[in-house]
């Protein structure tokens, strides 16, 4: 850092479907935003373009953080490598049988997910470990040699290894990978335990299979990106955003690329948690509305929640593919700005999940869209003005689409029809927000909403009021808040170890030993990544349940070492957590630990937020216009429209009011108050009665 004069300059680039975003902050509080087109298939070019466009000097960058859709694209487009699987004798078809479930209950011609690795590339090896980790049969290395020969002959590029019960003892997997590297140094290979040590063979096999499948793609992408960045003179420390809300190094990302599957979307959630810390809010509902979807996630006590029950391509009627890697727990629904309004067979108004996307887009874009969307409804109700669009808006065409496709079906005029579209879209969002809060035992009154993405600021004040949330924050850089979130991340690794033990039988020493193993691993990993020892922070979580149950709840537990008293305290916390989520406790039933989950953070130096200029004089100077806006309860109201850039800290605006910025508009209704805080965040008081 010395050669850069002690100045920190962190740059985040986030590749999205249409745009590649850049946000940079230095420790003087200077923030730079830039946007450039995404450039498939050579995504790194878009990154370089946006860096150039931002005007930042590459050699001044100290930390480069990157979010990418490369992995999810390779998976959904089936553009990964030809991959072979090595598994325990008798279990060749675990991937193909999967879990035998049929979510599409009444469809007799359903199709279940096809495995990424076809049957002929799945090879069995003798050698067996039991559930306690005891070796019953020794590993037959000749079987491995034969499999490797076969994969070579077939032209495979990657190998995944997963054995039954390897979560309890990974010695056979480790030996197998070692032997494969000897026999075939060029091949990409991973064992399941390198990715996860949770039980359930199908989910673990699927995870490692997908990891190996994307390894070559990830490796070549990361190498190209690294080369290009260096080429333009940037020698920053490089990090990649993972699905767990933290970052990792380029090197580690090449080994476990599957951890990047939700690289971009989770950063906004993490950013919300960080912003919360800055403004003194620990309980947050993060709410992100983009072009095609709305996403929400709950942050309890400052901690972002992760789950290992993630599946790609899952829908209500399709099982999808499990990835047992920690992913920030996000609920996503098909309702965004581009979502299409339509009338179903029963005559009910629906919005989404189909989206007009960027092409043909909403009717308002004037590039061929004929179906009314949420964006069109926002225009007709005055929440958006034609001036918010890059093109000349044909308002008559927008109104005609809404009248014909929605209004006529219900005998409504165009404003009522547009308002109905917004009500249905917001009702969908409301149900998603309830799902992550009320239905999981949380009272929204204890939470602050952080709303971002192009559409979040538009809907947040209304939804928050419906949910009894008192306060909403529309953060700085709201439309590119995911990239902002990346700037604020730390290195993060999750270590999850299945080890089923009854709390009344296991000793605290045994538990401490298990934790020590995970801690050692974390320290080794951080040492490899050059993370300073003093910057390492641990969080301890236990996945627990009542004996006889299968599903677990995550219980925050105290740091090790544990004593018997701590053990007792943990059992009590479990009873409380279970009651919190499921409304009852079983005080006489023994409890079990299923997984130990260590979250390890390597804290990075981060710039602090800089205050914006205080508001000088009346806010009216930022007033852009006054226009009629249609609200649910009051109908048309004359509503002042302000420019966000011109508002200083301390400015106070009374609803109804709209604050516009490039690519987002914040709407507050009558009876709500909007303030600009020290850092330029918009704070809305939703005027909720006690």
């Amino acid at each position, binding site marked *: 850092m010395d050669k850069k004069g002690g100045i920190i300059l962190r740059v985040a680039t986030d590749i999205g479907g249409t745009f590649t975003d850049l946000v940079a902050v230095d420790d003087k509080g200077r923030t730079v935003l830039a946007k450039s087109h995404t450039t498939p298939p050579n995504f790194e070019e878009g990154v370089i373009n946006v860096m150039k466009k931002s005007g930042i000097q590459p050699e001044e960058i100290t930390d480069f953080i990157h979010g990418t859709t490369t992995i999810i694209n390779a998976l959904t487009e089936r553009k990964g490598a030809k991959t072979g699987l090595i598994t325990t004798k*008798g279990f060749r078809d675990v991937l193909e049988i*999967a879990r035998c479930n049929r*979510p599409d209950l009444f469809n007799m011609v359903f199709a279940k997910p096809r495995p990424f690795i076809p049957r*002929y590339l799945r090879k069995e090896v003798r050698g067996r470990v039991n*559930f306690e980790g005891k070796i019953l049969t020794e590993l037959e290395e000749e079987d491995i040699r034969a499999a490797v020969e076969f994969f070579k002959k077939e032209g495979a590029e990657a190998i995944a290894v997963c054995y039954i019960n390897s979560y309890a003892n990974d010695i056979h997997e480790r030996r197998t990978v070692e032997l494969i590297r000897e026999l075939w140094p060029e091949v990409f290979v991973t064992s399941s335990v390198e990715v996860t040590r949770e039980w*359930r063979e199908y989910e673990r096999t699927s995870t490692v299979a997908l990891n190996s499948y994307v390894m070559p793609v990830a490796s070549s992408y990361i190498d190209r990106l690294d080369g290009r960045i260096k080429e333009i003179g940037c020698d920053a420390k490089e990090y990649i955003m993972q699905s767990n809300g933290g970052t990792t190094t380029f090197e580690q990302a090449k080994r476990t690329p599957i951890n990047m599957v939700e690289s971009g979307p989770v950063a906004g959630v993490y950013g919300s948690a960080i912003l919360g810390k800055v403004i003194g809010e620990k309980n947050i509902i993060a709410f992100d509305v983009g072009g095609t979807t709305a996403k929400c996630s709950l942050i309890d006590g400052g901690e972002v929640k992760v789950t290992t029950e993630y599946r790609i391509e899952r829908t209500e009627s399709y099982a999808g593919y499990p990835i047992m890697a920690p992913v920030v727990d996000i609920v996503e629904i098909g309702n965004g700005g581009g979502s299409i309004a339509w009338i179903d067979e*029963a005559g009910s108004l629906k919005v989404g999940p189909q989206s007009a996307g960027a092409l043909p887009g909403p009717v308002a874009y004037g590039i061929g869209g004929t179906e009314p969307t949420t964006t069109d409804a926002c225009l007709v109700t005055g929440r958006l003005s034609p001036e918010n669009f890059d093109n000349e808006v044909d308002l008559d065409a927008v109104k005609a689409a809404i009248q014909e496709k929605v209004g006529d079906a219900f005998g409504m005029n165009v404003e009522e029809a547009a308002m109905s579209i917004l009500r249905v879209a917001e009702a969908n969002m409301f149900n998603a927000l309830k*799902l992550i809060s009320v239905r999981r035992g949380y009272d929204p009154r204890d939470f602050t909403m952080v709303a971002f993405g192009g559409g979040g600021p538009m809907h947040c004040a209304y939804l928050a009021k419906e949910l009894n949330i008192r306060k909403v924050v529309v953060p700085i850089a709201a439309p590119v808040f995911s990239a902002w979130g990346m700037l604020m991340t730390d290195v993060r690794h999750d270590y999850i170890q299945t080890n089923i033990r009854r709390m009344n039988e296991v000793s605290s020493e045994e538990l401490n030993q298990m934790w020590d193993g995970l801690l050692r691993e974390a320290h080794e990993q951080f040492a490899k990544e050059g993370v300073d020892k003093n910057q390492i922070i641990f969080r301890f979580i236990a996945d627990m349940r*009542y004996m*006889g149950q299968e599903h677990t709840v995550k219980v925050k537990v105290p740091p090790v070492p544990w004593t018997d008293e701590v053990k007792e305290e943990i059992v009590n916390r479990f009873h409380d957590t279970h009651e919190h989520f499921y409304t009852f406790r079983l005080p006489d039933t023994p409890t079990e630990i299923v997984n130990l989950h260590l979250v390890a953070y390597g804290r990075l130096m981060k710039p602090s937020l800089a205050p914006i200029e205080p508001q000088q004089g009346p806010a009216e100077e930022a007033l852009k216009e006054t226009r009629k806006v249609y609200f649910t309860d009051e109908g048309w109201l004359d509503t002042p429209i302000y420019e966000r850039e011109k508002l200083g800290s301390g400015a106070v605006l009374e609803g109804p009011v709209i604050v516009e910025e490039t690519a987002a508009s914040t709407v507050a209704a009558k009876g709500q108050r909007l303030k600009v805080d020290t850092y330029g965040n918009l704070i809305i008081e939703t005027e909720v009665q006690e």
Partner: protein
Amino acid sequence: MAEIKVNPVTLDIVKDSLIAVSNEVFYAFARTSMSPIIYETLDYASGIADAKGQLLTQGNGACGFIGLIAPMIQEIIAKYGKDNMHPGDVFLINDPYMGGGTHLSDIGMVMPVFYGDELLAFVGNKAHWSDIGGMAAGSFTTDSSEVYQEGLRFSGVKLLNRGDICTPLLEMIKSNVRFPETSEGDMWGQIASLRTGYKRIGELCEKYSLEVVKESMERLLRQGAMIAYNRIKELPKGSWEMEEYMDDDGHGNLVKLKVKVTITEDEFIADFTGSSPQVASPINTGYSSLCAGVKVIYMSILGPALAVNDGVFEPMRILAEDGSVLRCHAPAPTSCYFESMIYSSDIVWKALAPVFPEALGAGHMLSVCSVVLAGTKQGSGEPFLIVEPTGGGWGASDGKDGEVGQFCVGDGETYNVPVEMAENRYGIMIDEYSLHTDGAGAGKYRGGSGAVRTYRAMTDGQLFTASFGRNKFPAWGAAGGKDGSYNYFEFHKADGSMEGPMGIVARKVMNRDDTVRMVTCTGGGYGDPMERDPESVAWDVKNEYISVRQAEEDYGVVVDPETYEVKEVRR
């Protein structure tokens, strides 16, 4: 139709909220259950009905539970009358011969929902308890001859009175089941999820008013019926008949099933008159379950994505003779009721397959292939109990090969127990869990492979019970496709001796290192195998779904056993 006073969009928003409540009630229970049959197999259902007991929305894990919540609620209304119901009441019902009946193992609970003084709805659920007493561990067995051997029977009794548990009843249950803690845990989980539903419906009334909620319930049913009638109008009209034998009744007698399906302008009628009388083995089914079996196929034809409610079922009529194997009465045993119930689905399916090729393919593995294994765990000596279905092959259909290793039509969002979990929890090891690639079910589209699952006993004295239907008649081919194969299991003892194959057994003793190899069938093929793309045939050989010989004999394709290239097509 009542005049719409309220904005229809508001009614739709409330309607969707009701469905969201139903989902919440459904998942809340799975997460807390103590029984693998519930939390993995999702062998339960929950639903909401209006004040008359008409089903508004239902969450299903098992497909075969479709529409069973409402008849259960209607029985409770008929028995108690609305004046004898109070906020906080919960009723218990598992009578196989009453509305919503299946087998005693499935415990139904019903809770009336009040807002103020008004009873406006019911929430109900039904879940498979691992044990409800009776002659065999796991309560369902293949050799009972009367219902009294199958466990406790509740014909609609009050379990909670104004929120207070009926302690004598609870004590009686706990004294009569094998795993009282598990059962009590599941009972409270079921009650908690009903209470959640109660609370949420109240919140909806608070937000939108009682009138709006009631009106949106009506709208939901009206819309359901309207869609169903519209779609039926578009279906081909006519009558189609089918007569089949179920494997046997466990005493060597074949059981006849017969159906005539008629579709008119506004009706869908399935008439099972002429089917066998009820039998003295537990494969009888009550009328409600028969209806569920037919509703599954009805839904697949009308549209699998349709919302399930009593409006949608309005055009259906299902006829069966009282006292027949498909509409049995006391004291017929029913613990394996699913065999005849799914056979009823299968013959309706087979009768209609030629009429609706886009919705119905060739025959599938059909049976739940249920396994009950009781014993003690090695080391700790603790008792364990496995109650689970087994996956198998599905038939091919027009344009698509059959699916492999899937549970039967009666299951659904049902999960197998992972090998690693089974070995940890039970006194067994699993030697094999792979596809059963016998190459049966040849066709232009090939039947999906069944599965092989082999359990090794790790302690002495384990008791194995299983009902693998479709052990005498294979999964049928369609449109010129060949038949698939059969379900069976066989015992390989530690001393090297072998017993089987067989399809039904009760409490067979397995000792340390004895194995049972369970094999499920390959589904039926669709279309002439000689029309299958030769490259697909070569790919099937390369992946060992079929043999080189089968490729040549069944498909007329000579495949090189080394390179797996097509050498010659002889057709």
